[in-house]
């Protein structure tokens, strides 16, 4: 169907490996060919643009330049942090002085046609909710799931050019397509504590704590995210948050690719569901039960 350059970013090699596994499995099921950018490097993330904006542009832009050589016009990244850096690198084309500096630093140019999109944008705009709805094999009917977008997927609006910066709905619609119940989540774009998990754990304790609290109040069985850092703060650090807030949250935090993958009937193991820290057992048992029933029915005639 479509061929896109794939920039997975460093997190998806390590702590967010299940985001990589599920993205690949989902794209394969949807007929999207992912061409991993050869010898890709780190985009520099927050540390690079807190050091020098040109360092961020050079590190991220090198990947765009390589993707161009592969004949790709669209680079897809599941990580919103990488996305922001890639889009920032594209923007320096508009400033002749910075463009020259980039060329001196990297030795390659960024093609003007190249676009950077998130996995979420690709799913919402290229595949579309209607098409996805028709592909659902294991509907998540009856399950309450809240979408959490975090900061950077739709912000800043001028750079992101996708969905609404204040009240994004793309993920809401995609999750609804799986049959799940999606309540309005008032904290969908409130910050989770970002990179301060290591340096200022109290910040993550407070900010992720209120997100988990709101989701629990809404009766959610799971939070769905599209950012490896948000996922880390809410899932890996959930025990730390519990200690900070003196609470006992036990809320699975899934990637959007995992939740859609499950509904499409992809094996939970292939989607890396066993890599999550807070076990989504209840969701899985129910789905697997429904899946067995379905295969039983299809075999009977």
């Amino acid at each position: 169907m479509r061929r896109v350059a794939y920039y997975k970013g460093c997190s998806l090699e390590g702590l967010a490996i299940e985001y990589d596994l599920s993205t690949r499995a989902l794209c394969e099921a949807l007929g999207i060919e992912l061409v991993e950018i050869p010898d890709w490097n780190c985009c520099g993330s927050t540390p690079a643009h807190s050091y020098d904006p040109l360092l961020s542009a050079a590190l991220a832009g090198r990947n765009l330049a390589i993707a161009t050589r592969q004949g790709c016009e669209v680079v897809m990244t599941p990580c919103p942090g990488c996305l922001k850096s890639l889009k920032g690198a594209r923007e320096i084309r508009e400033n002749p002085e910075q463009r020259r500096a980039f060329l001196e630093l990297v030795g390659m140019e960024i093609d003007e046609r190249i676009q950077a999109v998130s996995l979420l944008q690709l799913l919402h705009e290229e595949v579309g909710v209607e098409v996805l709805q028709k592909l659902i094999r294991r509907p998540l009917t009856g399950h309450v799931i809240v979408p959490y977008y975090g900061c950077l997927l739709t912000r800043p609006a001028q750079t992101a050019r996708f969905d609404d910066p204040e009240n994004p709905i793309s993920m809401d619609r995609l999750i609804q397509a799986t049959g799940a119940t999606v309540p309005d989540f008032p904290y969908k774009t409130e910050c989770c504590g970002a990179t301060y998990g290591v340096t200022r754990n109290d910040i993550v304790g407070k900010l992720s704590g209120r997100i988990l609290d709101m989701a629990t109040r809404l009766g959610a069985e799971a939070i769905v995210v599209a950012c490896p850092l948000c996922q880390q703060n809410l899932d890996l650090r959930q025990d730390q948050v519990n200690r900070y807030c003196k609470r006992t949250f036990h809320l699975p935090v899934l990637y959007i690719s995992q939740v859609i993958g499950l509904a499409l009937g992809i094996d939970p193991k292939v989607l890396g569901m066993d890599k999550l820290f807070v076990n989504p057992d209840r969701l899985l048992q129910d789905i697997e039960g429904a899946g067995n029933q379905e295969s039983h029915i299809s075999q009977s005639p």
Partner: protein
Amino acid sequence: MEQIKTLSLQQSCDVDFIRRVEEASEQKVSKCYQCGNCIASCAYTFVYDYPVNQIMRFIQLGQKDVVLRSRSIWLCANCQACTTRCPNNLDVARIMETLRIMSRREGTVSEPDIRTFYDAFLGSVKTFGRVFETGLLPVYNIKARKPFTDLDLAPRLLMKGKLTFIPSRIKGRKKIAEIFERLKFHRNNGFSRKVEKGRPHSSVPLTTQTDI
């Protein structure tokens, strides 16, 4: 109780500082009229020494020292809430980022742990071309002298097979290190000169505060 500081605004107003912030951030800070949308949106005020609207006012008043020594500019997570809601379309988050970079250059970083973490991160990128997550934490823990940071996570990470002990090194890692070196060289000598092949670049360690 915290002491109340008295500032003599006329004596301490640094006009050049205002110009430098506006130039580097490409934002007209004078447009801010203190509506308070930024502070109302900011999730980090609870850890700031000066809320973001006060930082904006301090810039207008040329209070370089107060601004560049504030903890707020390093605790800003660049979440873009302020930028999204500013009625004057000021990119407030970009202004905060500009201040972070300036404070690094001036040697006035008041949250050294955060800078140490960022430097460890960039050090990893410079060495391997990618971030080596497992290696990053020990480097930070040693440099920040906080050996027990996140130690509670290690057994769970190990159990899930998420600790990798060999860094993923890219083939072009020398090219990545060159980007860092060239940037330092050009920041010191200007970008207009042509890069000569094989020319030795000035090698300043990443952690120095005046290296950009």
